[in-house]
């Protein structure tokens, strides 16, 4: 149809349209979020698209759609698949009738993640096919064909792009958007969909029996392919294959693994024809383990012998170094170019005017000896403000908090969690804390949106993924129905009230909830809310540094004295912090 310059995730979303997708659900997570965002922003939408409350919810909804015979997609980041792992494992037994594709985006180097786990392990674990694209174009093509593959084998298909596929751009050759959509019909079949022991034992056998043909089919479809060019070879998977091709000498053979499970016979045939094989793949040695099993006399290089790193993401330089070490001269040698030492870091930071900053500030003022479990979101950046003591996974702020409180630790525990994360997996933890009598404060950082991943709406926002007004929900009512009797909602821009609320919370026992509520400063600006910026009266500024600890990027310092830059969003909290009244609204001197 047309060649366009597209983000990997945009190409993937377009491929879903080409494949006549009928249903899409997901929970936002970098680097996967833009796929649903592109689908929900389509002008013509002859399909259902939803942001779900968590990945398990998204998975089960999409699975059910596929049981009704329509084509379904569900998207998440790699750690989201942990949340959805329960239905994942058994969906391999039940299978599907409509094509079902699970997009789980991995994040080598953990650019925006809490770990570097490998989705291919889940595919192996569940015995499901997994597609692993090497380029943006291939991501598009594989996704376009994945629904048909799912229908052909009757199984969900896992689609595993990595950050450098999702967030790379390139020239992508697109096909036409499909126009044929199916009518959903659930056909009752308890032997397939009711996994009581008597049924599931049979289904397990069926799943295992599908494997040999599946492996051969993935070779037939060209996902796993090789070219024999010499006595040495590289086996590469995913985006690493692109880096390999950049530096591979002409006389070294190449096998590209783009799909799992790998056909061992196909692989053994390739490996056997070479004296040495180097395996290059990011994250886990998934391919390498199969290569080592297949190899009879071939010398194998990879992660297990230390030739290739286990952690982080690769570049052509990583591959060149590995080739060198394995004795296969790369076509390019990269200079050892080290960064200039001592350049002050510029980490990401909460925006000027962000509602989390005053909340953290007040929390630390009141709970000086507090322990601060936190969660996954923009507010994890509160680490820089000394307001984040733990972060492990979605929803764990409340459970880790109650665990610390119930362990016998006597200092006060104040957990912070965003609105979307609270709705994702925070609620069961709150219910548990009340039920078991934990003594703790939970602060819900309610900015009305899922901000960090690109401002996706959630049930608390008041609109659905497609912009339709949704039934209003109340965080206050949810907390009270979990059994919390002390719930206070406060405007975090109002520092005196915020401090007072925390002080009153401190005096009480049991589970206390403070809902700090103010729209995300980015969405507020986009929706036209304008606040007047503040300025510093240089005659009144004493250079005391009280505002320095607030850590706002709009406050700069010349020698000791504060100035306010053009980044000021007008939240006015620093004016309340300044002990000499030197911070004032612009034009109010």
């Amino acid at each position, binding site marked *: 149809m047309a*060649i*366009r*310059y597209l*983000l990997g995730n945009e190409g993937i979303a377009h491929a879903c349209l080409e494949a006549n997708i009928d249903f899409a659900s997901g929970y936002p997570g*970098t*680097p996967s979020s*833009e796929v649903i965002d592109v689908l929900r922003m389509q002008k013509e939408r002859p399909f259902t698209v939803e942001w779900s409350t968590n990945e398990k919810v998204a998975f089960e909804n999409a699975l059910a759609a596929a049981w009704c015979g329509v084509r379904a997609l569900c998207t998440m980041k790699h750690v989201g698949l942990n949340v959805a792992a329960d239905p994942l494992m058994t969906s391999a037994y039940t299978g599907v009738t409509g094509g079902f594709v699970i997009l789980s985006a991995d994040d080598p180097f953990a*650019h*925006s993640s809490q770990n570097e786990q490998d989705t291919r392990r889940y595919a192996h674990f569940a015995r499901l096919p997994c597609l692993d694209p090497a*380029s*943006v174009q291939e991501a598009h093509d594989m996704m376009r064909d994945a629904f048909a593959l799912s229908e052909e084998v009757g199984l969900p298909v896992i689609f595993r792009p990595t950050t*450098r596929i999702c*967030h*790379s*751009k*390139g*020239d992508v050759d697109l096909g036409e958007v499909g126009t044929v959509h199916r009518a959903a019909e659930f056909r009752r079949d308890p032997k397939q969909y009711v996994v009581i022991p008597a049924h599931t034992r049979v289904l397990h056998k069926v799943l295992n029996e599908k494997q040999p043909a599946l492996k051969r089919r993935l070779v037939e479809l060209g996902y796993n392919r090789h070219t024999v060019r010499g006595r040495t070879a590289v086996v590469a998977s995913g*985006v690493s294959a*692109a*880096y390999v*091709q*950049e530096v591979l000498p002409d006389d070294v053979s190449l096998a590209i693994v783009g799909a799992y499970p790998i056909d061992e016979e196909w692989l053994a045939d390739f490996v056997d024809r070479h004296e040495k094989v180097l395996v290059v793949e990011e994250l886990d040695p998934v391919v390498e383990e199969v290569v080592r099993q297949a190899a009879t006399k071939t010398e194998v290089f990879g992660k297990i012998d230390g030739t290739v790193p286990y952690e982080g993401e690769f*570049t*052509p*330089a990583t591959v060149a170094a590995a080739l060198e070490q394995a004795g296969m001269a790369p076509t*390019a040698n*990269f*200079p*050892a*170019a*080290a*960064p*200039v030492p*001592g*350049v*002050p*870091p*510029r*980490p*990401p*930071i*909460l*925006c000027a005017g962000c509602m989390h900053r005053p909340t953290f500030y007040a929390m630390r003022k009141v709970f000086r000896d507090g322990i601060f479990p936190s969660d996954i979101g*923009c507010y*994890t*950046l509160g680490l*820089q403000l000394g307001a984040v003591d733990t972060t492990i996974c979605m929803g764990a702020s409340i459970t880790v908090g109650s665990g610390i409180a119930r362990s016998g630790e006597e200092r006060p525990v104040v957990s912070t969690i965003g609105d979307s994360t609270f709705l994702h997996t925070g609620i069961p933890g709150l219910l548990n804390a009340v039920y078991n009598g934990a003594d703790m404060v939970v602060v819900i950082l309610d900015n009305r949106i899922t901000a*960090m*991943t*690109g401002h996706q709406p959630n049930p608390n926002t008041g609109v659905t993924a497609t912009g339709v007004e949704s039934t209003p929900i109340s965080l206050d009512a949810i907390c009270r129905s979990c059994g919390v009797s002390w719930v206070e909602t406060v405007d975090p821009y109002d520092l005196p009230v915020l401090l007072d609320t925390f002080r009153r919370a401190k005096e009480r026992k049991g589970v206390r909830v403070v809902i700090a509520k103010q729209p995300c400063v980015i969405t507020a600006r986009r929706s036209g809310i304008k606040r007047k910026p503040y300025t510093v009266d240089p005659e009144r500024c004493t250079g005391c540094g009280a505002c*320095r*600890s607030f*850590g*706002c*990027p709009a*406050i*700069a*310092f010349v020698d000791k004295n504060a100035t306010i830059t053009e980044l000021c969003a007008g939240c006015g909290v620093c004016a309340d912090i300044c002990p000499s009244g030197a911070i004032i609204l612009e034009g109010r001197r």
Partner: protein
Amino acid sequence: MKPSFDVLIVGIGGQGTVLASNVLGEACIIENRTVRSAETHGMAQRGGSVESHIRIDGKHGSLIVPGTADLLIAFDLLEALRYRHYLPVGGKLVVNRHLVVPTSVYQQDLDVPDEESILAALADLDVTCIDAASLAEEAGSILSQNIVMLGAASGDIPLRPETLEEAVRRCVPPKTVEVNTVAFRIGREKGAGTP
């Protein structure tokens, strides 16, 4: 000779590095050339240091290896220093004469180099220094600094200036096409005029 022309655009989240890299990508499509690029998304972009890799005529991966970039465009002096190792010695740098001090510097009381010492540390590169803010204001909007910078670097980019201008028109918000077209031209003149 490597097959692609590799441009690294660096700055601070919110300065418009992604838009600038989109212009280069779009220009490649207009000229029927292949392109690969990589950007920063997610948490890392909140006011932090960001980088866009653009490989004009790229056919494989999107990442540029340090020491091999053909051009570095930096929207901030400190970011120029942070990423200068992507260029070989003598490589081409187009940098905005502007320095935003990271907030962490104030909080942790770190030393931050001043403009003069940064420029001294970059002296072994082929440097063009641009006052993007005043040129953007001259063009009609302070928000067009990213396009000013792209214009200033465009003489070193193997894409036709008319293609780049067309790409600017396609990539910027419709209401700002005029301002950004002027910004590109002013930047281009300034970039060519600096020895």
